[in-house]
């Protein structure tokens, strides 16, 4: 992967939320890069910081209570975090677009869908009213809505959930963005519709050479759709790998646990494997590795309990943040570990 292929590069991103009860570090030290024309999946359970990461790229973190406290987000050669709000508006919706989980509430019920798509086109591409409307018919057709000439005049409540998500996608791609952020785009949809929407995203990606940041909790979707995967747990990335590599051999105990706990068609088991306990709250993160209280390996390990591991390349193309993964510790650390913590 050469440098030129990288569309978005995030380094050491940190986002905090301030509340009466304390500072919640929603995202800590997150670094990854998205290649052109590829799908990068960010997977994790609710509250792990995956959506906050996506909102940071759009610079849509509500302030207060949230604030981006550190790091950089390079979109091509521009650091988005240093752009003025005005410059950012020319990128948001234009070069970077986003679709949300809830197709019911993300469309404005009082405007026809044509109005809503045309507005974005007129704003970013400086087209006339008529051109913009013609374009919106075009994108509706592109996202597989039948009879788009009639549909542009319809209102959101006249469409089904799947249709609304298609309209959302049409709005997002209307300005041919280079990066599409899809935040749980199919969670609210039925399984058969979910597949259709994901297929549509794939098609559009091929046609427009668009990068997709796919945020989801569903490992199955990740396996079938992503090129590269980052697994997040408790505000940090714990593992990054190529998609197949991850599902063939997960390195981090959390990823392993997640994969084992899924019920699968055709696999007959009396019980499911589980990860004990529950996800820690951002205000009460445990010391050391945040996964250690639930980890089968780290539970009794002094190092896991006291020092938080950062993300390192443990094999070519494989990144993990776990003291117990082979190849993680440096020679120096291994020596120090031996003397400092004892075995």
């Amino acid at each position, binding site marked *: 992967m050469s440098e030129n292929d990288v569309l978005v590069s995030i380094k050491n991103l940190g986002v905090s939320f301030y509340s009466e009860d304390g500072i919640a570090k929603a995202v800590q030290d997150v670094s990854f890069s998205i290649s052109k024309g590829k799908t990068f999946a960010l997977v994790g359970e609710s*509250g792990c910081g995956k959506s906050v990461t996506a909102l940071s790229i759009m610079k849509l973190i509500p302030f207060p209570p949230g604030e981006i406290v550190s790091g950089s987000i390079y979109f091509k050669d521009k650091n988005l975090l240093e752009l003025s709000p005005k410059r950012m508006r020319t990128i948001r919706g234009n070069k970077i677009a986003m679709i949300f989980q809830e197709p019911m509430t993300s469309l404005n019920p009082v405007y026809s869908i044509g109005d809503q798509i045309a507005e974005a086109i007129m704003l970013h591409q400086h087209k006339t009213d008529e051109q913009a409307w013609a374009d919106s018919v075009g994108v509706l057709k592109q996202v597989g809505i039948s009879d788009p000439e009639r549909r542009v005049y319809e209102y959101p409540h006249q469409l089904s959930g799947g249709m609304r998500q298609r309209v959302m996608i049409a709005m997002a791609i209307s300005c041919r963005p280079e990066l599409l952020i899809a935040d749980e785009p199919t969670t609210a949809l039925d399984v058969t519709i979910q597949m259709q929407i994901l297929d549509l995203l794939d098609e559009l990606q091929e046609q427009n050479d668009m990068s997709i940041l796919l945020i989801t909790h569903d490992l199955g979707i990740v396996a079938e759709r992503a090129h590269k995967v980052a697994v997040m747990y408790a505000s940090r990335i714990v593992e990054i790998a190529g998609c197949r590599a991850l599902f063939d051999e997960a390195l981090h105990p959390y990823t392993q646990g997640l994969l084992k706990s899924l019920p699968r068609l055709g696999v007959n088991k009396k019980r499911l494997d589980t990860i004990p306990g*529950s*996800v*820690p*709250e951002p205000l*009460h993160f445990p010391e050391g590795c945040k996964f250690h209280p639930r980890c089968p390996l780290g539970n009794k390990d002094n190092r896991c309990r006291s020092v938080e591991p950062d993300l390192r390349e443990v094999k070519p193309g494989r990144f993990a943040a776990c003291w117990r993964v082979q190849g993680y510790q440096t020679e120096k650390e291994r020596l120090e570990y031996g003397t400092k913590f004892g075995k």
Partner: protein
Amino acid sequence: MVNLKKKNQQLGLSYGELVWREFKKSRVNIIFLIFIIFLFCLAVFAPFLANDKPFVIRIDGQLRFPIFKSLTVSNYSVFLAAAAGLIQLLLIYRNRKRIDPSIRGAVLFRQIVVIATIVAAGIILLFIFFPRRLDATDYKSMLASGGATDAVFAPIPYGYARTDLEVREEPPSRRHWLGTDDVGADVLCRLIHGSRISLSVGFVAVGISSIIGVFIGSVLGYFGGKVDFIGMRFVEIMMAIPSFFLIITIVAFFPRSLFNIMIIIGITSWTQNARFIRAEFLKLRNQDFVQAALSLGLPLRSILFRHMLPNAIAPVLVNATFGIAGAIFIEAALSFLGFGVAPPTPSWGQMLSLGVSTTGRFLWWLTVFPGLAIFLIVLAYNLVGEGLRDALDPRLRRAV
């Protein structure tokens, strides 16, 4: 997502405490709440603050306590009710420390029922057995003539029903801090005694309208369908009647008594509450926890009043504080127009109406002071209501 270990095993917080914590964060809320409590104290202790009977007086070498003798049945009823309220507050405080939160609601309900019964019985007994006495002795002239000595008077040594034509329509002075009215009664004294009317009108009227509104609203909201359809048309008819004119009409037919005014305000202003409760119930009806209660076969009473009502009551509580302010206003307006309580019972609205005397003079102290009192109490209730709404809202969002 709570860390179960982190919490110590003390008794949990009740919903009321959560709201209270939120409420007291704003200083304005506290200031005006204290103001309302202060007014309550004034109203309760009015006879001790402004009375023409002395606390202690020596007549013929014997100590006497005429002020206590002069207290009427209604005074004792007020004391009884106030004491009961105070005991209830202390019990709530004690419940918080001693009683398991899971049964706290039930205990509180039982306490309220017991105390309310005692108060009601006490008042009835007082009315039946309390001897009517009238102490018309003019202790001041006795003092002046030397018939008595060593008197200790209340801070404002005038009765609210005093007529003293020598000092009528006097502006504020050292003797009468807020001046006197057309028959020479002390304005401050009448203001203090008038607070009883205003506060009780607000409370009783809103109590009546809340009970009617909650009952009708919950029935309409829970049963829905035809019951709701017919019921709502009835509510709409009630809302279409201009209530103030209805009140004036009714008051014109019935004797001018405080109770009539309270009841009339109460039964004409429940519609808003009914609509609030109905809307909440319609929403709650389909919530899973109500379905869960139904599927466990719990009795209707429990579903309506344990599961649904506590989740629907917030807007009614907020509306109640605004309602009290509104009722005070209506009473003042009625009294101003001459439909209110009959003199000599003092009321703020009635005092306002004396601002322009029969001789055509504008008596500013009779306009400003009662006006200010009405303004402040209405403002206080509105602000407390606003604070309560804010305190209930974020909690609701977080808790549900």
